[in-house]
């Protein structure tokens, strides 16, 4: 006989039936996965990034496989916030899971406009701000690398969408992600999600040209897991906000490691491509593990990472 395990987790104002959420840009608008799994088995799902107007994205090639990872430069193609509300959200609402809208803009005003439009939309559980996009007003430098810019855009969105839990998604392309995390907190974030993709490049040697039409792209998948895990642990130590960790999570063991490192919930991205039913398998795997380890409530393992065995631990490797 199976003992019941409490898989529910709470991240500030956001309550999830379990800690497994599918990541933005890797799960479409949700409906695409209905043939393969019950959306209601997921803790939640994050939509493809939404902008004010529809975006067609970058020309192909948009993706490239790398060692245990992949590069993408989709260019944030999406149907736009209006079409999302009119055509996607109504069908999603039917499924008993947390629907999280991922939001981005090229300017702070666009972030604000999209967030305002989403505020109060029936069936929306939260919005997630993608700060990895280039700020066209600041010479194309990503919003997410400048603490004052982070604090300002987060604050503005906070005011524009007062009714929705606000998740701020951090870019890992920064010297110390804890600094960005603090700025997001000071701007009014309820939850932090990390990490987005790492800037990377693949070259077609025969053509002496970048493989991706866009040139650079974002690296995701198992290859980045150790980097993401480090950042999650660091932010958990330095900043007092609940975390949704992600980066290469491909099975229940990976997900549990992120939780031990300080993630209250996890997001699954690239794994949805090479294993479309992974998300529900991870939910079950977490439950089985809790049962085996006699953990009554999975939330109890969040941030339980012990100190390293070594005498005087420091970042010094080599």
């Amino acid at each position: 006989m199976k003992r019941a395990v409490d898989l529910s987790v709470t991240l500030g104002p956001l309550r999830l039936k379990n800690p497994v959420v599918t990541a933005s840009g890797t799960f479409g608008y949700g409906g695409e996965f209905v043939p393969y799994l019950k959306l209601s088995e997921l803790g939640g799902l994050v939509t493809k990034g939404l902008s004010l107007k529809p975006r067609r994205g970058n020309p192909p090639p948009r993706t490239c496989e790398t060692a245990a990872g992949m590069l993408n430069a989709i260019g944030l193609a999406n149907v736009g916030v209006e079409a999302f509300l009119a055509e996607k959200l109504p069908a999603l609402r039917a499924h008993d899971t947390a629907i999280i809208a991922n939001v981005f803009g090229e300017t702070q005003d666009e972030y604000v406009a999209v967030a305002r439009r989403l505020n109060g939309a029936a069936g929306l559980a939260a919005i997630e701000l993608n700060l990895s996009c280039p700020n066209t007003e600041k010479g194309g430098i990503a919003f997410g690398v400048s603490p004052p810019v982070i604090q300002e855009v987060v604050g503005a969105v906070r005011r524009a969408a007062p009714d929705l839990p606000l998740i701020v998604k951090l870019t890992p392309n920064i010297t110390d992600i804890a600094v960005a995390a603090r700025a997001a907190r000071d701007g009014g974030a309820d939850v932090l999600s990390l990490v987005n993709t790492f800037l990377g490049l693949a070259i077609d040697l025969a053509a002496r040209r970048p493989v991706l039409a866009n040139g650079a792209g974002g690296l995701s998948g198992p290859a980045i897991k150790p980097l993401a895990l480090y950042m999650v642990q660091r932010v958990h130590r330095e900043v007092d906000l609940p975390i949704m960790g992600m980066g290469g999570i491909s099975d229940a063991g990976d997900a549990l490691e992120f939780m031990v490192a300080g993630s209250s919930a996890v997001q699954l991205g690239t794994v949805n491509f090479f294993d479309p039913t992974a998300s529900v398998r991870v939910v079950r795997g977490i439950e089985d593990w809790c049962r085996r380890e006699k953990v009554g409530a999975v939330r109890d393992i969040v941030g339980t990472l012990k100190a390293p065995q070594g005498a005087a631990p420091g970042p010094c490797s080599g």
Partner: protein
Amino acid sequence: MPVDISSRIVRHEALNPDHFLLTLEAPPIARAARAGQFVMLQVREGYDPLLRRPMSLYRVLPGRRGRIQILYKVVGEGTRHLSRQPVGTSLKTLGPLGNGFALSAPASRAGGAGRAPARPLLVAGGVGIAIFPFLVEALRARRRRPTLLFGARTRRDLVALDFFRRRRVPVHLATEDGSAGSRGFVTRLLEPLLRPAEAAAGTAGTAGTELYVCGPTPMMRAVREQALAAGVPCQLALESQMPCGIGVCLGCVVRCREDEDSPVFQRVCTEGPIFDALRVIL
């Protein structure tokens, strides 16, 4: 409805050093499949390679055991690993995916060529041949008599000919090195068949002619031009890098003509892999 299942290898045959015919036990996929669709196939366990590989359905074998076949060429690491998988191994297989061929000429031209008896021309370049056996069976089930034009680099690459010959499908061959059929590209074989009746004494003209094309992009680009010039309906089976195969990563897109209800980029895995030559821009 597509499914993601673990399917056992029941046969794995080398047709030549780099072409292989794989037979998998995959009943739910076999039941649902249509000609021109594909599967996302795991080539081996683990993270190297990370992504599955898209592979057309070569055939669904008759009978109740639900066996599907894939004909593939080794072009890189993934297909090389696949070629080493022994019989008995199970591989994750997601499918059937994609739109498949439209078996009547695309609506856009039905008016024009609707009445004439259909003359399906299958145009294959290299391993593009892999998509056609399934189509031949579908066409024959509709009492259509397809003709195959098959071009490849050299004689050795002209695989799967037995399938077509056994079914009395007229086959015209071309090789770049002239080692079999006429020397040159498959487009050379196509040219005379697209001449209008009046101009081409002794040819039936293009009435009812419809093209089904699969091969390397340069070849498809050329055939597309010929088809548009001759005004015959033409379906192209496109390839692209496909991380997911199910329409969520938006990685596999191809440029298409703009019109109200279709964005300029369409997903090869979902809106395709079969595109009307009129719509796609290569």
